[in-house]
């Protein structure tokens, strides 16, 4: 059974002139790390919403098609039950806090409390989440005094604690500095190794190139690109959806123009790829 199964999904916001998502169909196998890329307003956030049940449960608008997460039809499953199979981390670190927990530890436990997990189990899971996000030292601090990067890790820890098979993240690093962004991706990588299915909308294509197994490129609500990062991120079509190659790719392409790149060798999207390619020549 695929972790995510989307059939002919369209969604139009009440005031929207065109659909935010337009006849999208795709499946994602369990344990994959999928990145969603695209210009602003391409539909990344709406897709994340559709994968976490925010759409159609919490947003007004026209919803067509079918989305299944771990076999549950999201339109027919109550959102509190969906919360058992999918967790969602949002762009803005602050507004996704519960708002009623006074310590990092209690904040991470919030979702477990709502599920009625018994206390010893809860303590175990919260400690594990603190450990795996490197937040153990901040456990007793107020979440409202943390930096954006730390808050985003709290949100991730909360998702780790509820231990859902699927994790959706909507541009989690937009407001973070590069060091925090790197840490977030390192945590995601470990989660993937533990078998989680991860979907992350992201603008930082260099991070996408390093971590994703598969890249979905959205353009005006449609699926314009779909493939492994080494294909999608260096495809000339990337520019057609309003994005730029990473500078690693651009350097390689310029080198190719100058004859400094092996003929017919694919362009890379990572630092190592570029260095290796240049070394080979």
């Amino acid at each position, binding site marked *: 059974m695929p972790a995510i199964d989307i059939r002919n999904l369209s969604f139009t916001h009440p005031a929207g002139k065109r659909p935010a998502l337009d006849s999208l169909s795709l499946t994602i196998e369990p344990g994959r790390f999928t990145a969603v890329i695209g210009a602003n307003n391409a539909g990344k956030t709406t897709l994340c919403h559709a994968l976490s049940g925010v759409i159609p449960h919490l947003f007004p608008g026209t919803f067509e098609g079918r989305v299944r997460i771990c076999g549950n039809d999201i339109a027919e499953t109550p959102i509190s039950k969906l919360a058992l199979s999918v967790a969602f981390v949002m762009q803005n670190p602050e507004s996704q*806090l*519960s708002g009623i927990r006074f310590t990092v530890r209690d904040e991470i436990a919030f979702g477990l409390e709502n599920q009625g997990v018994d206390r010893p189990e809860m303590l175990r899971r919260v400690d594990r989440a603190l450990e795996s996000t490197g937040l153990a030292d901040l456990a007793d601090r107020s979440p*409202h005094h943390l930096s954006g990067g730390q808050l985003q890790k709290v949100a991730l820890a909360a998702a780790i604690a509820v231990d859902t098979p699927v994790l959706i993240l909507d541009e989690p690093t937009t407001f973070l500095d590069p060091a925090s962004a790197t840490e977030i991706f390192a945590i995601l990588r470990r989660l993937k190794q533990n078998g989680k299915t991860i979907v992350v909308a992201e603008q930082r294509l260099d991070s996408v190139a390093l971590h994703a197994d598969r890249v979905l490129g959205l353009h005006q609500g449609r699926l314009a690109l779909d493939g492994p990062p080494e294909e999608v991120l260096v495809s000339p079509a990337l520019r057609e959806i309003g994005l730029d190659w990473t500078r690693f790719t651009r350097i390689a392409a310029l080198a190719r123009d100058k004859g400094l790149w092996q003929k017919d060798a694919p362009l890379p999207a990572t630092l190592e790829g570029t260095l290796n390619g240049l070394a080979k020549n």
Partner: protein
Amino acid sequence: MRASGTTLFVEGQSRLHGCHPFSKLFFIPLTGVAAYVEPGTVQAAVFLIVLNMTLAAAAGVLPTAWKITWRTLLPLALFMLPIHGFLYPGNHTPLFSRQGLTLYAEGLRFAGTILAQLAAVLSASLLFVLTTHPADLIAALTKAGWPSSIAYLLGSPLLMLPAMRDRTGVIRAAQQARGLDSGANILGRIRSLPPLVAPLVLGAFAEIEQRAIALELRGFHSSASKTSLRRVPDSTAQRLVRRLFLVATVFLILYRIMI
């Protein structure tokens, strides 16, 4: 654990800190009714003030309680004693007279009584506020089966406040940097109000959607019976005392109505 300056809560390990929040909460109406039920007699109020301040001392919060009590009651006293002393409608026993102004006994007694009654209720409220971490009250409410939404309304504004206060500072700075002059005369200050208030309100409103989504997705309204990481100790004795407080409060109210 610190409440991180969100409320007046003072950290401590005293027995009063360890009491169930409801026990301390139920004591407030009892004090209020006891202090106000028999207007004109100050004894009950004074007894309660002494009792509450003793409890505050035992809990290690007396300095804070004392400071807040004075900060609250001093301005009241400064207005109340002269206004009632000179002008209370029931005045007829002059105490002191100078240049046509006469200070009367009845007014001063009236003002003194009110101040004592207020101090009694205030000190009881302070016992609760100073020794109860808001998280404990929220956990207690949830455990007692109150709707999670009510707990949310009590807790989340407290936690939103610091960030929102910071935002007012940033908004002021941002608009001043765009040439908004809020240091001018009163008309200018009134005119500067909408550009300061609008971003605050609209910005806060823009986050409502995300906050609501976050709550829903984390199962805030799930029908499962909820558990709590935070434990609020309670005891049979405390439950009994709470019931006693409640009965006494009701009795005093009935007594006042009957007599």
